[in-house]
């Protein structure tokens, strides 16, 4: 059986209400539910608390694009949850210089600590100005109906 995890209707997601979710102010967000943390020329990227809740228990994260230069919104990997699979979209153009090796043995970190140990890739940005076009925490929270 396949469950379609709608992103609009349900205000409740895996034992958490949207209101109890965290959307740190220092991050930028995309409509595809990724977050971006900028450190100099680099961007750290993961998926939001809302996204991990919608996906449910994550089995593994598959990213085979290390070393590749990619454009904004390109698919850089997939995340496999028990019930569903989802593509990961790159929020900013650049080269993927590192994948979070900790996820290999501990993919649950995406569920338990999506903005910390659950980070996915580090990107050397080729066009840092793209960050300005992303949503801030308030805009993202508004988009998902929090």
């Amino acid at each position, binding site marked *: *059986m*396949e*469950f*379609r*995890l709608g992103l609009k209707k*349900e205000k*409740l*997601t*895996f*034992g*958490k*209400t949207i209101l109890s979710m965290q959307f740190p102010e220092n991050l930028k967000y995309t409509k595809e539910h990724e977050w971006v943390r900028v450190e100099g020329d680099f961007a750290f990227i993961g998926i939001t608390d809302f996204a991990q809740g919608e996906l*449910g*228990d994550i*089995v*593994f994260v*598959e990213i085979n694009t290390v070393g590749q230069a990619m454009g904004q919104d390109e698919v850089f990997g*997939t995340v*496999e949850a*028990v*019930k569903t*699979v989802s593509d990961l979209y790159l929020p900013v153009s650049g080269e993927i210089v590192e994948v979070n090796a900790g996820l290999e043995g501990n993919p649950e970190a995406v*569920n338990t600590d999506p903005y910390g140990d659950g980070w996915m890739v580090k990107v050397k940005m080729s066009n840092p100005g793209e960050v300005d076009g992303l949503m801030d925490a308030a805009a993202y929270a508004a988009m998902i109906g929090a």
Partner: protein
Amino acid sequence: MKRTALYSKHLALNAKMVPFAGYDMPVSYSGIKAEHQSVRERLGVFDVSHMGEFFVEGEGAESFLNSLTSNDVAALTDGKVQYSCIPNGQGGIVDDLLVYRYSSTRYLLVVNASNIEKDWKWFFSRKPENVSMYNASDDYSLLAVQGPKTAEALQALCPEVNLADLTYYTFTTGSMAGIAEVIISATGYTGAGGFELYVKNEDAEKLWDAVMAAGEAHGILPCGLGCRDTLRLEMGFCLYGNDINDTTSPIEAGLGWITKFNKSFTDKALLEKQKAEGVSRKLVGFVMQEKGIPRQHYRIADANGETLGEVTSGSESLSTGQLIGLGYVATSHSKAGSEIYIDIRGRLLKAVVTKLPFLK
């Protein structure tokens, strides 16, 4: 969207709700992995009130049911339950179901939620004069309490019934949690043991609360359809709509063991021929040898990339960590040990056909 009598319980427990078979159903409460583990190791409770219940009564009930279902209804005795399926007259399956025998003139059929209307029409339109039917689907709620600690936890709720005496696939009717006439059935869809409890809608919340309270000391968790699916898949139990449907035959699906040729029934000649001469495809279980989760409708291929069939169900086995699936393959590749390849979004990843159940 229909709601079960336990809908407000699910919301109070912060369940994630999804549409399923026309009902707004809980897919998960605390997380599929935690719920799965609670059933395998302790116990969990599922609201599966969406399932359909038909009572079939009358002098002709036994022969009527025997003519429309694949298993041998005459082999049932009072208080026993039988897994069976309804062949559709064209080599496919209308539904799979449980047949409960109260007596040779009174039966209860339990059918899949998505097929209630189809099944009702199928039976009712073929019913002889000496059989009466009643569709009780909207009257009954169904709580599946599953897991090795179930009997121990629930025994205090039903002092008149010794749960340890209820062997697998038997049932009785008795008082539970002060509610009269609960149907207590030693069945389930998890392979973890336990009971399914049929109760009138007006008593459903009372029973749910009593089960949760009785299970608390044993670590009970409310469980959703998500882990119901991962639990049944580990056992290799078919899911109607995924692994079996109107176009799959019981013989192809590995349901020969519930297809009995000592009686007359729909598609008997066709299925007997399939059994004798063999079928061109079979439903098999397989374990991934490379990292990828097989999902419904993914293509199955041989080593040369030639199509063998398709995946019907797949998941991580939450008990073993293996990546497992069910699917139809050409009979040439259906033996345990056969190497097959799953087309996972364009990449052919190796898998090995394995005997069921996955979880021994």
